[in-house]
């Protein structure tokens, strides 16, 4: 194999990183290009280093493994390493190469590496370019949609602004506004852009709190100060900060249902 596999380790626990370093150190054709101790570092380092493969823990402070993936574009090959087996289904939905359950042995890791090489070469053959390698059909949109298990609603939204990552608790969000392929997240006077459709993001939020009042707007009902009737069937919601949000007829029905 001409080029070595460039891998990165993302885990907040030092022994877990040490174990991977030991295992990977003796694997031929693998070079560890970096280690990250939390999700923020990971997003920055992965964007800069563009590794072929990352070993990713799920339970990490502030930004978990799935949220890290959501903020990456392109997404490298991913091998999850976790003590929790309940995330396996989600891992497959985000096209993870493999899912290592702690504690794991050398043989299991070698097997995962073999999977990764297989996956990455097949993609490389298809594109003819090794450096562009990434699992097929993984975009931030599909990742975001899969990043939450069914029936669970989002508690925080991770957005990336260049190398900076913001984590916004959903209760702070005032309003979501569709802007082409992006969603503008209005939060206490600030606005963040997230690469996702409004429908996809709205789907992951608590429907009792976030109501789609218009094709282009999802509003946090707790921020609504009052509703004003402009003309027959034409209403606006006035938020606490004075912002006015148009309400469509079907949006008004949904709002009434949510407010009970």
């Amino acid at each position, binding site marked *: 194999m001409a080029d070595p596999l460039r891998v990165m380790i993302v885990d907040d*626990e*030092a022994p877990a990183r040490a174990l991977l370093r030991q295992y990977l150190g003796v694997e031929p054709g693998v070079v560890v290009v970096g280690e990250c*101790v939390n999700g923020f570092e990971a997003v920055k380092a992965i964007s800069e280093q563009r590794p072929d493969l990352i070993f990713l823990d799920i339970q990490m402070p502030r930004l978990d493994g799935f949220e890290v993936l959501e903020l990456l574009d392109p997404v490298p090959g991913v091998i999850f390493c976790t003590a929790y087996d309940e995330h396996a289904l989600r891992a497959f939905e985000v096209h993870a190469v493999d899912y290592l359950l702690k504690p794991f042995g050398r043989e299991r890791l070698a097997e995962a590496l073999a999977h990764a090489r297989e996956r990455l070469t097949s993609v490389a053959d298809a594109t003819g370019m090794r450096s562009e390698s990434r699992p097929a059909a993984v975009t931030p949109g599909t990742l975001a949609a899969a990043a939450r298990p069914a029936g669970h609603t989002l508690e925080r939204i991770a957005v990336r602004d260049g190398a900076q990552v913001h984590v916004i608790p959903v209760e702070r969000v005032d309003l979501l506004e569709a802007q082409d392929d992006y969603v503008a997240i209005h939060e206490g006077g600030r606005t963040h852009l997230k690469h996702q459709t409004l429908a996809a993001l709205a789907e992951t939020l608590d429907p009792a709190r976030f109501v789609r009042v218009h094709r282009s707007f999802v509003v946090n009902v707790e921020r609504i100060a009052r509703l004003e009737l402009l003309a027959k069937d034409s209403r606006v919601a006035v938020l606490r900060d004075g912002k006015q949000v148009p309400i469509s007829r079907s949006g008004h029905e949904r709002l009434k249902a949510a407010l009970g």
Partner: protein
Amino acid sequence: MHPLFRRAGRLALYCFAAALSGVLLAAVLRLLTPRPWLDALVFAVPAALIYGFAVLSAWWVCRANPLSGGLSTLAAQLGAALQASALWTGAAALLGVLIARAASLGPGPPGILRDLATLFVIGIPFYLLSAVVHYLLIMFEASHAAEKSALESRVSAREAELRALRAQLNPHFLFNSLNSINALVGIDPEGARRMCEGLGDFLRRTLALGARESVPLGEELALVDRYLDIEQVRFGDRLRVERGVDPAVLDWAVPPLLLQPLVENAIKHGVQDAVEGGAVRLEARREGDLLVLTVENPFDADAPARRGEGVGLENVRRRLAAFGTHEARLVAGRVGERFRVRLELPAPHEARGGSGG
């Protein structure tokens, strides 16, 4: 609703009994004023049925006037008896008139006054009898409910114990610890041995303490120390531990396995979820007659409230309740930049005395 109406079978039986008393009543009326059986029955049986239902009103009167009320209850019941009997007499008068009009049967205008006087006199003791039966019924129901709730609290105490044990042996804690040992084997074999020993010791202590009703605080703290040693390997510098334990309270009896879940929570929220980690502070001291234990961790105001927060606390609350001490309580909340759980336990002898159930 009156319990009699909850089952059709019971109600039918009661109606049958009321009708039978109607026959008895007919016999009494015939004795006082001789007349044909038909005349007596056609008046007495419906009247008895009416009163049979009227005396059920004692159910509500009994509930409103518990026996502990003494004289005022007696007065209320006597008043109710007079009222019930008077109403019944009135209803019977109406009944008598109707029967006389419809079929020219029954006591008829001249004799009816005597009959009504008889009914009024009979009605009072019957109402009081009904009141006595209802009081018995209420007492029976209360003791039944008490038994049931005692049983329920025993079951929930057992459940709480099981839950605590299961939480104690959190599989993810074990998996992560084994992964740490796995790493240490390659880079620090001596550390790996120490950790195996520590993990074994922690598990053994957990099983031993979990089987007991109460343990000295010192033993509970030793278990927490084993736990912290293991977590220290995982989190390294990110986990800092501060202790403020008054040696004088180490002998006090506490329910086992209370502190470790609190410390586990503190690590999860104050250390694991914080990029820079944080300090977990553990205190034990005496305040008056109380043993006060506090576990504190840094609190990130920016972090969204996580689902599942409070489950650990709920477990500890249940364990406190299962311990059976009413004076014991748990207070949890933010204190400035920190999250604090404060446990208050009564003096040792009270703690032991209350742990009977």
